């Protein structure tokens, strides 16, 4: 998705806001929202890619005027509904009850509890140990594909179509693109890819800078193969890879 969240290289956001002696949270509700999200990841009600996707689907004007944990809250509420955990009416009704001085605690006694050590709670997306053949190796020259899917992706716009070099093969991980839309487990190698900043930002950019991105294999094509394809004629590919379907499936 070419969304507002994909900010690398944008101008106009002004100076970086720094706060001396900043607390970990700025309000009680931020603490709770953070903890609720983590506890929910542990319950596997939705995965972290779905959560990121839901944040990215916040309308751009709302995204920009919301604080970080407000975006978590908006995405979380959207996912509760999407996953049929709670309806909009239930959330409305619970909000009214909270407004009426309702308890911060449960509306009624909890049906179960789920105490998990905090340090073990999280996105829970380990490196996969299944053996998957790797298409690239360190030193290979690659081009980040120009993918413009409406789906979630972790290939930022600023790298698309740009040439880089594989620095490291991190191993096999779940591809976020499909995992964010229905939870499919597509296992692919993920690589550290270095891009010269002049390749990213143009010949007038100062030399001596690079950006390293961690990119899943389907985001990449071989620079050598691309050169061959470009010198061959016209139409290039007939089969579709796992990423980059342009249109979202209607729910």
């Amino acid at each position, binding site marked *: 998705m070419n969304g507002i969240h994909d900010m690398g*290289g944008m101008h106009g956001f002004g100076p970086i806001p720094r706060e001396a002696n900043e607390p970990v949270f700025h309000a009680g509700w931020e603490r*709770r929202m953070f903890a609720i999200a983590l506890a929910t990841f542990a319950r596997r009600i939705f995965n972290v890619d779905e959560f990121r996707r839901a944040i990215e689907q916040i309308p751009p004007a709302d995204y920009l005027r919301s604080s970080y944990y407000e975006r978590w809250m908006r995405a979380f509420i959207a996912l509760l509904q999407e996953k049929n955990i709670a309806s909009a009416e239930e959330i409305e009704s619970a909000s009214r009850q909270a407004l009426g001085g309702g308890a911060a605690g*449960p509306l009624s006694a909890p049906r179960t509890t*789920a105490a998990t050590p905090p340090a073990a709670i999280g996105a829970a997306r380990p*490196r996969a140990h299944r053996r998957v053949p790797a298409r690239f190796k360190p030193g290979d020259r690659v081009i980040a594909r120009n993918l413009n899917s409406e789906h979630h992706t972790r290939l930022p716009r600023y790298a698309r179509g740009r040439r880089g070099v594989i620095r490291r093969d991190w191993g096999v991980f779940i591809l976020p693109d499909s995992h964010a839309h229905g939870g499919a487990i597509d296992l692919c190698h993920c690589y550290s890819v270095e891009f010269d900043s002049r390749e990213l930002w143009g010949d007038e950019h100062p030399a001596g800078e690079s*950006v390293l991105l961690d990119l899943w294999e389907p985001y990449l094509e071989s620079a050598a193969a691309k050169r061959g394809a470009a010198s061959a004629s016209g139409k290039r590919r007939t089969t579709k890879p796992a990423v980059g379907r342009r249109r979202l499936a209607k729910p």
Partner: protein
Amino acid sequence: MSDHDHRDHNEPESGPALRVKAIESLLVEKGLVDPAALDAIVDHYENKVGPRIGARVVARAWIDPRFRRRLLADAVAAIAELGIPSGPEGEHLMVVENTPEVHNLIVCTLCSCYPWPVLGLPPTWYKSFAYRSRAVSDPRGVLREFGVELDPGVEIRVWDSSAELRYMVLPLRPAGTEKLSEGELAGLVTRDAMIGTAVVKYPPDTAARAAERD
């Protein structure tokens, strides 16, 4: 542990505060979350993790070259040696080393990925649109804004945390710190230095005090 003892009960009930209270009530009612578990999570991230952990790691790497090599090769295993547990956003940790020739900078342009187990939760500026947008395209400008003026000959590597890897910078050890203890060294290391938006300094007054003590 009592319910919500980390909440500010005197803050006004803003829109988000009400909504989050409603969400918590609903999820507790449905048996999906346990308020005590939420308290434990908050306590962990508010009180137990933070940049002091990363600073310990840095100080150890400065004084122990073999640990440094292990840290750069496999950060998760190396920090486990120090009894530091891994955890969310740290399962795949990579420590990148500053040298006189290379300065590293960490960002997440797409959201705000950050190495929680070693640095805690990120500061607001790290999550700001200004930092997310400019760190990749204008790292020297960002560094200047943080008061860091690198020699033009120093190469900058910006690590955009786009996948599962989380990054921490191993800053340069400042000159004149040869006699400091591991704990004193850790005391010099700031959060921003481990993100790459600061360099570690050994202020003259600290140095003077140390010299006096010797």
